[in-house]
């Protein structure tokens, strides 16, 4: 029994417990304002995890997660403007995720079944994000609307009904708990997947696509499905963000927005969901403090982190730390030699 328990003692797991402990007790220890603020961060973390899923775990570099984030937000907003009544909003949430899933499926079908991979996927997804952003920016005129929802050009859509379950409006602490519960479910999903058949399938595709197909894996199909799931996840993040702020604008879809998950995932550790969450919390908090103090340095820091990580710590700062701590501290303490398998 002790041995079984010992198996679970790794730096990553210790950090995960501490992390979620912190997150679950956050509302009790902080003001409503700060809790609400955190809710937005949680949306960004879910977005980052969607990129980790396709890039870190499956080897598909997608610049389009921001596009699906925006599609989720806009779909929710458009539905809210067309069909009044807060009670339908959960359905809108599901619809937004479905649209995100579908959009991702169409794009990924186009790419993967056409044999497109690697750099070209990066380029196509980048172009898609740019097209979407450009398109949304020029929708200022009154002719640009879907049903009753005017797309609003640069100003986007405002005064969007917040997500409401029954009579509970998702604001402040409620939104935070809602987002946190979703994040926890997603996170547990990731952790379970890593050791499962799906997890190993994704690794095999990431490591050597052609070889994996020669073991019988229908690579294009799997890539498409994972990309679509990631699209739905990004759309979910978009809806949370839209409910948080009550608005959605084209910059949510832009290249700068697209870069943030890339930094979070690359610098945290793209193959490790815990590392991504930890680094994201750290980075988002820090950059908000920097922006609040009126500095223009946050983009400099972003660019520098990106550069330094890619060059010197390609595995990700936090992920590398997990491994170093495991090797030097945890395993010696437990008299255990490293024999890890799985996604890491």
């Amino acid at each position, binding site marked *: 029994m002790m041995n079984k328990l010992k198996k679970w003692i790794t730096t990553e797991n210790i950090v995960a417990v501490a992390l979620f402990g912190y997150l679950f007790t956050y509302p009790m220890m902080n003001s409503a304002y700060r809790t609400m603020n955190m809710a937005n961060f949680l949306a960004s973390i879910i977005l980052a995890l969607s990129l980790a899923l396709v890039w870190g775990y499956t080897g598909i570099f997608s610049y389009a997660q921001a596009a699906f984030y925006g599609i989720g937000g806009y779909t929710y907003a458009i539905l809210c403007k067309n069909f009044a009544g807060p009670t339908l909003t959960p359905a809108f949430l599901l619809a937004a995720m479905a649209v995100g899933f579908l959009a991702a499926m169409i794009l990924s079908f186009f*790419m993967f079944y056409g044999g497109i991979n690697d750099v070209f996927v990066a380029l196509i997804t980048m172009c898609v994000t740019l097209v979407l952003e450009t398109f949304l920016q020029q929708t200022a005129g009154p002719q640009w609307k879907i049903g009753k929802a005017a797309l609003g050009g640069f100003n986007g859509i405002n005064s969007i009904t917040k997500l409401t379950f029954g009579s509970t409006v998702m604001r402040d602490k409620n939104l935070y708990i809602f987002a946190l519960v979703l994040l926890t479910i997603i996170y547990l999903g990731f952790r379970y997947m890593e050791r499962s058949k799906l997890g190993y399938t994704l690794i095999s595709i990431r490591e050597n696509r052609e070889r994996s197909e020669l073991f019988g894996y229908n690579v294009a199909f799997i890539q498409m499905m994972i990309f679509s799931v990631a699209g739905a996840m990004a759309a979910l993040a978009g809806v949370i963000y839209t409910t948080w702020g009550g608005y959605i604008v084209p910059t949510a879809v832009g290249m700068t927005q697209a*870069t943030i998950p890339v930094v979070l995932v690359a610098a945290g550790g793209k193959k490790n969901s815990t590392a991504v969450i930890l680094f994201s919390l750290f980075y988002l908090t820090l950059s908000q403090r920097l922006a609040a103090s009126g500095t223009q340095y946050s983009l400099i820091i972003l660019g520098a982190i990106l550069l330094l990580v890619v060059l010197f710590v390609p595995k990700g700062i936090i992920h590398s730390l997990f491994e170093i701590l495991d090797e030097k501290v945890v395993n010696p303490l437990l008299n255990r030699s490293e024999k890890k398998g799985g996604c890491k």
Partner: protein
Amino acid sequence: MFSYLYQFLDSFSFLVLAVSGLSIIFGMMGIINLAHGEFIMLGAYAMTIMAKASVPLPLAIILAALLVGLFGFVVDKLVVCRLYDRPVDSVVATWGISLLLRQGILILLGPSLPGLTTPMGTFMVGGTSYSIYRMVLALIAVVLLVLMYWLFMHTRFGLHSRATMQNSATAQAMGVNTAQMYSLTFTIGSALAGLCGALYGPTMTITPTMGQAFQNDSFVTVIVGGANPLIGTALSGTVLGVIQSVLNITMGTFFGKMGLLIVAIIVIRVLPKGFSGLVESYMMKRKNR
């Protein structure tokens, strides 16, 4: 009628001048330099600063190009050379560099520099006035293409470049110093970007984000053109020039931008090697008939 021609020449020269640097780097090394727009911006800044310091315009332009080339050399030595075999990572890294440059210039030199006025004045056709300078740029674009052709086809450097582009392992075995080739290519590519910025500088507002205007179009043109900097650039510059000018005139510049991006998406899917690949396979088929 003339307005279409003018628009076309304007788009064509813009694309060719903006793209040549990027396409040489892509063709040689398979790396998409996402900081390309920022190199162009640096060229514009360098030229403007020198011109304001009373350096004659043509000299300022050439010096600016050289300075940016030097900067590119440094960037290659520090960053890019470690990523020759990691194309996706180089996309991420150059994006980081572009952020640093944009924000860095903003912090160092403020949100804009007082610019120059477009030299050479205007000429009239059918009641509308057009800029002479922009026509001169079109001429320079053509001269550049001719120069590139000469360089690649009739010099030893060009021979080595083409060999390395086709098959770097073999070229290396034949004694071509591929690492040096890559370095030189990145430097030249950067200088060309600087040249573009310096040439267009007098016609634009000098801001840290001005490179972004060139960025999307350049990288679309490179993708559509493919790895051959000559054929690819010329062909895609032409085709995209037509598409963009038609869209600009009929539906406005937003749709011009979107049109190019959509063409890029389709081309990547249908012709991943771009026009270069198309031409290459056509020539192979002819050779084997």
